[in-house]
């Protein structure tokens, strides 16, 4: 049960990361590789500020803004200086490794939960469950503190999902979607595509930095390596979500991103439980994304072959 709640909680925190990837990779079709760096930057900034006594909410916001800035830099490198998209992302991601070490001052910062946003979890725990030390859900036992954490991140993920959905129904949100769909058309309708791209990556990496800032507080430490593989992780969540909702409508994609993120985290937790070597995790993740990208094509080709045989 602890494993389940833990996976759900991390999955929901990382759904913010999936939202960010959804904006860059799907909505504006910019293959933004900043992610591994901006995720860590968000976590590093928040951890550093919390460790030096700042209010955790302020620290979290600064973490998100730091990530957002990194995204804006990537977009500027591409639009302003004409650097290839992938290279722009790689440049920023690489530079961020040094920046993150500078920000943190060392490669690892431990955090005490009373100084982080986890204190809200404790307060909610007092209000809801008082002094109970264990909860029973039809035979399953759970720690009340974990349940409160899960409740809070659920609210957070749903809240951000709704805000994002609302944003994409505004004039500026609609124009942002058009950039990924047909940039020539939206330019002819008066949108500064370069500027809009910067805004989109700012927003995307804001959410990614926020996910990083929240994760360090949940797990109780920040590590300079924590961002490695986060891009592929987010892409896996988005793809998984897409295959579950089966449409490209933005509302469904947002819902799918949350579902994909949670499901993917659960799958990973199960695999680790069944004895998967944690060192193999990135390899498995990459293989999974490969399969998710290629299999649908094979399946359609296969069914076409079957149909052709039937006709013959």
């Amino acid at each position, binding site marked *: 049960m602890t494993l389940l709640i833990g996976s759900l909680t991390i999955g929901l925190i990382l759904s913010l990361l999936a939202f960010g990837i959804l904006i860059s990779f799907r909505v504006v079709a910019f293959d933004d590789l900043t992610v591994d760096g901006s995720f860590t930057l968000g976590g590093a900034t928040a951890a550093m500020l919390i460790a030096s006594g700042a209010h955790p909410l302020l620290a979290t916001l600064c973490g998100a803004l730091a990530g957002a800035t990194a995204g804006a830099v990537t977009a500027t490198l591409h639009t302003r200086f004409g650097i290839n998209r992938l290279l722009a992302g790689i440049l920023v991601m690489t530079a961020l490794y040094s920046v993150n070490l500078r920000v943190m001052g060392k490669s690892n910062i431990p955090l005490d939960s009373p100084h982080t946003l986890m204190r809200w979890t404790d307060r909610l725990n007092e209000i809801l469950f008082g002094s109970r030390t264990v909860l029973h859900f039809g035979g399953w036992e759970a720690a009340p503190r974990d349940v409160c954490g899960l409740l809070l991140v659920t609210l957070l993920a749903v809240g951000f999902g709704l805000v994002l959905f609302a*944003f994409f129904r*505004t004039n500026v949100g609609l124009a942002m979607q058009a950039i990924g769909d*047909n940039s020539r058309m939206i330019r*002819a309708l008066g949108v*500064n595509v370069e500027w809009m791209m910067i805004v989109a990556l700012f927003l995307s990496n804001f959410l990614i930095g926020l996910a990083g800032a929240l994760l360090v507080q949940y797990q109780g430490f920040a590590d300079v390596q924590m961002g490695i593989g986060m891009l592929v992780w987010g892409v896996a969540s988005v793809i998984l979500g897409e295959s579950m909702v089966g449409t490209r409508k933005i509302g469904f994609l947002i819902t799918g991103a949350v579902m994909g993120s949670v499901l993917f985290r659960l799958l990973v937790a199960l695999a680790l439980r069944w004895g998967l070597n944690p060192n193999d995790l990135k390899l498995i993740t990459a293989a999974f994304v490969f399969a998710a990208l290629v299999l649908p094509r094979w399946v359609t080709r296969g069914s076409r072959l079957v149909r052709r045989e039937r006709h013959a």
Partner: protein
Amino acid sequence: MLEISDVRKTFHPGTPNEVRALRGVSLSLERGSFVCVIGTNGSGKSTLLNAIAGAFLPDSGRIELDGIEITRWPEHRRAKLIGRVFQDPFSGTAPSMTIAENLALAMRRGQRRGLGWALTPHHRGTLRGRVASMGLNLEDRLNNPIGTLSGGQRQSLTLLMAGLLKPSLLLLDEHTAALDPKSADQVIRLTQELVNRDRLTTLMVTHSMQQAAFLGDRLIMMDRGQIAFDISGQAKRRLRPEDLLSRFEELRRANQLDESAAEMLRAQYV
């Protein structure tokens, strides 16, 4: 209205691929005029349209629209004054977005886009009316992705979008060339309706001698980056497609094109 003076553009200057696409084009359009532009491939007619739309900046010359100099304006800024329809029917609309969403994007052409709702019920009502007036039976499919429509339907909608906010200038770049004859006729009918309804100043590049002869109140023939003929008024009204062909023939002789190129022209224009 539209004042173009001595606009020049050379692509890839100083390389073997150098193309002097515009060699000093000057043109003046009156408000409400409908001008057709014809010319052979590479004559610079599309380049002229792109220069006006801002797809590139001219090497020299001056472009003025509505009394405002726009020579150095970037493309997206000119969109405030200019509505456009492209040759490729897939260029003018966002395929995975719905008809209503595409129209909502066009409803703010050249305006600030803030955090207001893009599609209120009021907007939907207005847009529905505009779509219904085209007579294509698309008004009940406003929530369908535009990618599910045919090229002709998409081009008709692009035309509607370009004219949704009355533009100072409407640029049509061979907008029926990629359509089947029936859809092309339909798009031309809609073009006439739109232009007449709002008295739009229009510049239309076309491949079709029929359209060039029977549409608009003025005709410009371009040749090698310059304006070769400029016909308006009575002379334009008397013009027949055969006259245009003989004009092409004159140009051919003047340029001493070989027969194979002339054959190609005939295949393309007759």
